């Protein structure tokens, strides 16, 4: 049990810089989701199954979904702005 605790702590410690170091937001969503799963495993190993259950769904599913939603919205707005600029150029 003691060994398992050290292993999971090490994995979480390694995964956290992984999230911070992935530069592309789309890649970051995937690494963040994996990090969320590792955190859930850590909570489970440290005997907090209730927290682990919420962490799986929030950290590994819902948070990445919300980030993807924000990214879609931003891309949508960027494209709209570009289209507008192109139209203005054509008008001139």
């Amino acid at each position: 049990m003691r060994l398992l605790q050290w292993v999971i702590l090490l994995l979480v410690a390694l995964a956290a810089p992984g999230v911070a170091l992935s530069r592309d937001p789309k890649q970051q969503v995937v690494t963040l989701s994996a990090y969320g799963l590792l955190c859930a495993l850590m909570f489970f190993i440290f005997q907090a199954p209730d927290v682990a259950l919420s962490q799986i769904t929030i950290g590994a599913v819902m948070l990445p979904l919300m980030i993807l939603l924000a990214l879609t919205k931003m891309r949508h707005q960027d494209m709209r702005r570009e289209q507008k600029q192109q139209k203005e150029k054509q008008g001139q």
Partner: protein
Amino acid sequence: MSAQVRTIFFLVSAAGLAALFAWGFRDAPPLGDYRGPYGDVVTKVAVFERHATDVVNAINYDYRAFDTLGEEFILFTAVLGVLLLFRPQKGEGEEDKKQEQLEEKLPVSDTLRVGMEMMVGVMIVFGLYIAVHGQLTPGGGFQGGVILASAPLVVHLSGDVETFQRIVKSPLIKLAESGGAAGYAIIGVSALFFGAHFLTNIVPLGTTGDLFSSGTIAIISIVVGMEVTGGFLVLMQIYLEEIIAARKSS
């Protein structure tokens, strides 16, 4: 600032932070060392007082039910906030009225489709189990609700966009969200009519270990499950509308 200066700056501050961290944790009590009396008392007393075998939920939905009420409304207001931020903006309104649809089937492999479709039923049963057995086993309304809400996402991943849209656009979802949020408050207020304090456990407690036991803990767990499922599905509905809008403009 050049890259080299920045790296040096980072290394110095990281070393400082590490030193502070080590210093701060030097006197931390060892793992599993608990000093306060509250936790010890509540783990001994909860099963007898509230007939709930999951002490975590006995605390969440009974001893500190008022805090959980606040937390539930944090989620409720967060969903409202997202609804407000992602509302159709100027110039977007006219396009949305055309009500274009996404393609009904996404091109996914048969393996993925069959695997995901098999998972949906399991997820719904498991989510319901977790939400309903909140007073007996780890889990409860919040966890069960999020599992239930991710089931439609799996439907979307399996390529069946039409069914996903039908689920997510159903008016039942907003009813579940607002009904769940209101239900918690109503359970709390109904205790006042029996001359007890707000959110007192007034329902008969039943036999410990039964599905229908622990009084309001089980009921609140189910109500929270409804609210969470509804809240997250509202978020997914916004997500869907965003995808539709993005596809149209590209």
